[in-house]
């Protein structure tokens, strides 16, 4: 057991650090040992003691100087999609094996400036393409609740590291569900904020109109300082927002909204959520939903009702079509983004070739894994002459209809939308190997939110599967820029339940 395992929240560890009962350097050294000793060597793609300990010593200095913040000395780790100076960045691809970035991603820089100590780089699906972490070129990650099962993806290493207690927080990215789905499968909390609130600068691009970073942690309360530090306008990202409905997009926004909502809930007494209308989309409870998942989500809704909220049935009629819309738009953007890997400026170069074009195509075919090649081919197809309008523009039209359905529901019928994150619990490693499209269909409840750019969370709400020991997630979707209130709602639920406190060892 590491020293870190004695602390169940960022707040508790932060208090111990600020009162100097714990030193950041000792804690980091201990956390590095625990990460190295952990049963799954594939969670971390790189650990570098010296880089981590230098950050920890800086944290101790800030603690001594009295300049420490909420995250000073808190051990975290980064999905390997975020570029880092020092640690290598591979996007879990052979293409970028050994790549060292000349700069830090804005998210990485923001968290470092907030005092967080990074333990290293976490595995993910190659270029964030996948829902199982099996597409990593460096081996699958195992679910800490059941070593035979996937942790989900693409931020599978991030979710597994938090669930295994190796870090108190981790960065992830969510393009079609890649924070929410692994959070659900690993029994941790995760949030994808509104598109444009967190900078994409230094996040290796997959699908630029969908990619958005978000943190994973043990509880909603722990997500608050992480997301708050990550967020903010960044001139280096052309889609970064300067303001959120008239308010500046800066650090402190999410923290303030969270505290205001939590204060209002506390002041309301026995029925803290009185007046809150929860929209429950009937399309999220179709025949594809596993009974255990449906039952766990139903129980969670009843907890919210007992806290004063009311439930309204809503309809998101295009839910099913979010799958083809997403799997046109995301591959189209991927095929364009990944054209930069040409074997010239960085990345893998084939050893033998005849000419420039041969060098490029050999390098790309050797460097990319199956799923990446597949999505590049699909994206190239839907963007090619004669199909652009029929597939790509049609998908973008359906995207607008999906976004309008969400907007209408959240404007007219309800204040928040809740439902399952996934149709079932985590599957076995290797199960869908013969059918690469099967996993795509499992993204049905998360893709619409991504297409609409809305903020959404996953929090633990029960267990299922044959063993009854596999975590289930509740999805909570808010209005644009509603991150603080969503986190406060999730926090209120977590005050009334203990699903988020379960850990694999104690299950």
């Amino acid at each position, binding site marked *: 057991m590491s020293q870190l395992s004695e602390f169940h929240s960022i707040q508790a560890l932060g208090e111990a650090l600020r009162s100097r009962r714990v030193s950041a350097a000792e804690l980091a050294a201990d956390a590095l040992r625990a990460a190295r000793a952990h049963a799954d060597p594939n969670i971390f793609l790189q650990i570098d003691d010296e880089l981590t300990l230098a950050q920890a010593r800086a944290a101790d200095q800030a603690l001594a100087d009295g300049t420490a913040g909420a995250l000073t000395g808190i051990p975290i780790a980064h999905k390997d999609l975020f570029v880092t100076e020092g640690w290598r960045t591979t996007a879990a691809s052979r293409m970028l094996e050994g790549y060292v970035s000349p700069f830090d991603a804005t998210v990485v820089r923001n968290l470092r400036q907030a005092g967080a100590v990074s333990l290293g780089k976490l595995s993910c699906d190659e270029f964030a393409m996948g829902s199982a972490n099996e597409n990593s070129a460096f081996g699958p990650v195992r679910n800490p609740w059941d070593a035979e099962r996937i942790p989900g993806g693409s931020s599978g290493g991030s979710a597994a590291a938090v669930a295994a207690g190796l870090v108190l927080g981790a960065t992830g990215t969510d393009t079609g569900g890649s924070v929410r789905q692994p959070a659900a499968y690993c029994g941790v909390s995760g949030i994808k904020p509104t*598109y444009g609130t967190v900078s994409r600068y230094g996040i290796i691009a997959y699908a630029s109109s969908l990619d958005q970073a978000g943190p994973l942690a043990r509880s909603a309360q722990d997500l608050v300082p992480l997301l708050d530090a990550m967020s903010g306008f960044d001139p280096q990202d052309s889609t970064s927002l300067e303001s959120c409905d008239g308010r500046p997009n800066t650090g402190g926004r999410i923290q303030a909204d969270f505290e205001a909502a939590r204060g209002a809930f506390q002041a309301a007494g026995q029925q803290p959520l009185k007046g809150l209308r929860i929209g429950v989309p009937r399309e999220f409870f179709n025949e594809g939903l596993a009974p255990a998942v449906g039952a766990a989500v139903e129980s969670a809704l009843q907890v919210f009702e007992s806290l004063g909220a009311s439930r309204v049935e809503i309809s998101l009629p295009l839910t099913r079509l979010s799958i083809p819309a997403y799997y046109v738009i995301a591959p189209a953007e991927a095929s364009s983004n990944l054209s930069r890997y040409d074997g010239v400026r960085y990345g893998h170069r084939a050893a033998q070739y005849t000419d420039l074009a041969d060098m490029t195509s050999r390098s790309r075919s050797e460097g990319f894994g199956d799923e990446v090649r597949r999505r590049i081919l699909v994206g190239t197809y*839907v963007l090619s002459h004669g199909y652009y309008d029929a597939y790509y523009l049609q998908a973008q039209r359906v995207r607008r209809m999906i976004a309008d359905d969400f907007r209408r529901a959240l404007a007219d019928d309800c204040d928040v939308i809740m439902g399952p994150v996934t149709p079932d619990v985590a599957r076995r490693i290797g199960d869908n190997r013969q059918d690469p499209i099967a996993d795509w269909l499992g993204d049905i409840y998360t893709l619409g939110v991504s297409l609409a750019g809305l903020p959404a969370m996953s929090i633990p709400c029960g267990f299922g599967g044959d063993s009854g020991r596999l975590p289930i997630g509740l999805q909570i979707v808010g209005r644009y820029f509603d991150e603080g209130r969503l986190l406060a709602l999730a926090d209120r639920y977590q005050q009334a339940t203990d699903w988020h406190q379960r850990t694999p060892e104690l299950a």
Partner: protein
Amino acid sequence: MALTEQDIARLARLSGLRLDSNDQSRARQELDRILGLIEELQAVDTTGIEPMAHPLAAHQEIALRLRDDTAEPAQSAARRDACLRNAPAPHEGLFLVPTVIE
């Protein structure tokens, strides 16, 4: 609509990918399946709907910021070397590629 071998070869070329004959037949099967899935979009009546490229376009006016088209001051040679460190074949501040014109 089934894809032909020629379709796959053309797609591979446009994608900058080299597929051997095994890869090609597998790609053909998979793409047929995927196109069957995305074909579902054709059944939606989208008359009068504008394509949406930015996810917040349903919520607010979107104007992407453009930078001024001005040259940045040259950075140090050390910075250039740091950027070239990842190149497969750098040479005196340049990227080497196979001969393009004899």
